[in-house]
């Protein structure tokens, strides 16, 4: 009996929920989700940053008032989150660019058991990204809150 072919590819109906869980995700998939979240966070900050820094055109009093407002601990913590998010996004982005160009993927091999899994072969690179991002976030935390 012939196997019925699907009329069209299955759509990704999970949407944003699928970013969190849709089966057995590996570390790289969660890095992808975090990459998107940090990217959206940094973009949101960039938009606010453009408006906030634009107040310099109105002179020193307007600038001082804006900076005074943004000195609130909540904004300072937000700035820290943006810094930590940027560090992760940059490091993971470099990893993704290498992959896009064909590096960090492993060589194609015949599908013979036990199967070779290109991403898993380069998992230490993904771990390195996580470790460096944590170190960067820690240094930023020391700079902004402890020193």
């Amino acid at each position, binding site marked *: 009996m012939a196997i019925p072919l699907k009329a069209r590819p299955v*759509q*990704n109906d999970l*949407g*944003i929920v699928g970013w969190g869980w849709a089966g057995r995700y590996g570390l790289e998939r969660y890095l992808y989700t975090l990459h*998107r979240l940090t*990217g*959206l966070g*940094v*973009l949101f900050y*960039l*938009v606010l940053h*453009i*408006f906030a*820094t*634009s107040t*310099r*055109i109105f002179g*020193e009093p307007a*600038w*001082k008032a804006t*900076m005074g407002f943004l000195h609130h601990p909540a904004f300072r913590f937000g*700035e820290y989150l943006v*810094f930590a998010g*940027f560090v992760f996004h*940059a490091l993971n*982005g*470099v990893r993704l*660019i290498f992959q*896009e160009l064909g590096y960090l993927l492993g060589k194609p091999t015949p599908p013979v058991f036990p199967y070779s899994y290109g991403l898993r072969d380069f998992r230490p690179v993904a771990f390195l990204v996580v470790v460096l991002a944590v170190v960067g976030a820690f*240094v*930023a935390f*020391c*700079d*902004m809150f402890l*020193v």
Partner: protein
Amino acid sequence: MKEGLGWFFQLFTGLFLVALLGVHMLGMHMDTLLPRFGMGYKDPLVFQEVLKRGHAPLFVAFYVVFLGLALYHGFYGLRAVLMEVWASSRTLSSINMLVWSLGLFLFFLGTAVSVGFFLV
């Protein structure tokens, strides 16, 4: 714009932003540790420092290029997310219009402020 070219620019701007945004973040947002090692700015947000940087042609050029690259990279990323969440041929043109109009508006605002501040 062709999708392949748009994606190529996304990678290209991403690489540049690692360097440019890295320098910006370290210089402007980590103003406690770096000055102890003789790097970065001591008080980058004091108005006199802002004034000094805002009247340096190289800084203004850096800011405008940096702004363009950051906005392209950010809004192309937002477009990719929106296209995944609301994927249909009907929404694509609306998403394109939204990201282009917002991106261009912010680019012109940031550029006008930088150039205006440089000239006053």
